């Protein structure tokens, strides 16, 4: 399922490295994710998966790793990352 996320991260997270070099549980903030880019990434994910992140997910931990992002999307729309 991370294959669906990686292109969006490459496009919106503005990391100095490519997403396919990052492990699922690797800290995105340490990899260079800024709070500005995190919001841009959230907006792109909402658009791509037709979801809306509730307020309780708008925190640092939800967007700390690709794994945690996938878990949020999974919870909001279980079929979204099935492929």
């Amino acid at each position, binding site marked *: 399922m991370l294959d669906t996320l990686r292109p969006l991260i490459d496009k919106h997270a503005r990391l100095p490295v490519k997403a396919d070099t990052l492990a699922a549980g690797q800290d995105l903030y340490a990899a260079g994710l800024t709070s500005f880019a995190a919001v841009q990434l959230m907006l792109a994910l909402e658009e791509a998966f037709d979801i809306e992140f509730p*307020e309780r997910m708008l925190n640092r931990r939800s967007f700390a790793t690709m794994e945690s992002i996938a878990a949020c999307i999974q919870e909001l729309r279980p079929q979204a990352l099935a492929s």
Partner: protein
Amino acid sequence: MSSLVARAQLVAAVAAQYSDHVDKEGRFPSEAVRAMKEARLLSAYIPREFGGEGADLAEIAEVVSVISQACASAGMTYAMHQIKVSSVISHGDKAEWHQEFMRRISSEQLLVASATTEGGIGGNLRNSICAVERLGDRFSLVKDGTVISYGRDADAILITARSAPDAPASDQVMAVLTKDQYKLELTGVWDAMGMRGTCSDNFKFSAEGDVAQILPNDFGEIAAKSMLAICHILWSAVWYGIASSAVSRAQSFVRAEARRNPGQTPPGALRVAEAANMLQLMRSNTIAGLSRFATAKVNDDDLGSVGFIVAMNNIKIGASRMVVDIINHALLITGINGYRNNTPYSVGRHMRDALSAQIMISNDRIFGNVANLLLMHRLDPSLAA
């Protein structure tokens, strides 16, 4: 030992005697800081188990405000020290080296300064160019063009750097280095409009230390979870102190006028009422920040939430804008007596000190960040804290 506030008032009495001289000469408020050390105020925030008094942030904010009413440079120095100490308390409480460092702050009343800026990063603290270079259990670090307020008078410095020479700019750590471990080369002298006593000179900083001196959490986490919030709240307490002092001078001016002309309400009286109204808003703003922080600090998710960041940024923006408006009212009330530097009603130093508020982390930069966050975050209309 007497209460924190009683001791802060003693320090304020010392600071008041020298505040004009500190401002005029652009020198460090050494008498006030010596008084803070004698009153053991530098370790007030440190938990009792490490030799401090375990004060909460509201008590520290009150000390900051009391000292700032007398001398904003001394109050800001105290605030900046506590902001640095808070990072050690929140993120070094499990690390042996940092526990020992807290004991030293308490027993020796060490003054701690900050080196988070760097030449070439464009004002964004969350980026570093310099990096920690590890060799075994030692490391070395050279940081160029860093602003270190009261750097020459500090006993220790908390400094940020990339975690390794090959790490990205935002992968930062924070290390504590003591005076015997670093060398400061002065590269730019602080000669500013206001806050002249903070002596925020530029330096080239070079040091060597033990790897154990690096705080265990990365700086991104330290900044997000304690530093920025505490920074905004304690700065707001400084500005509230300045505003209170200006309104108090304006009120004294109007009272003196009223005594001279019994039966007539002086023209400035209405403006004093208006200034008091704004001062109350400013006070509420700071208290709301303290209560929001008290709620968040026991809930890690809340502390890392977008809503919390938006709230803390708004505390800072609100306080930094109101302080200038309030002092301008004090100036309108006191007129030429307030404009002159050598009267009991002078508010020139207050105004110049207060103008720093909107550029200490530029309000425009903060508004830009909040604007971005508000693309996601829905504002909470509740009146509950």
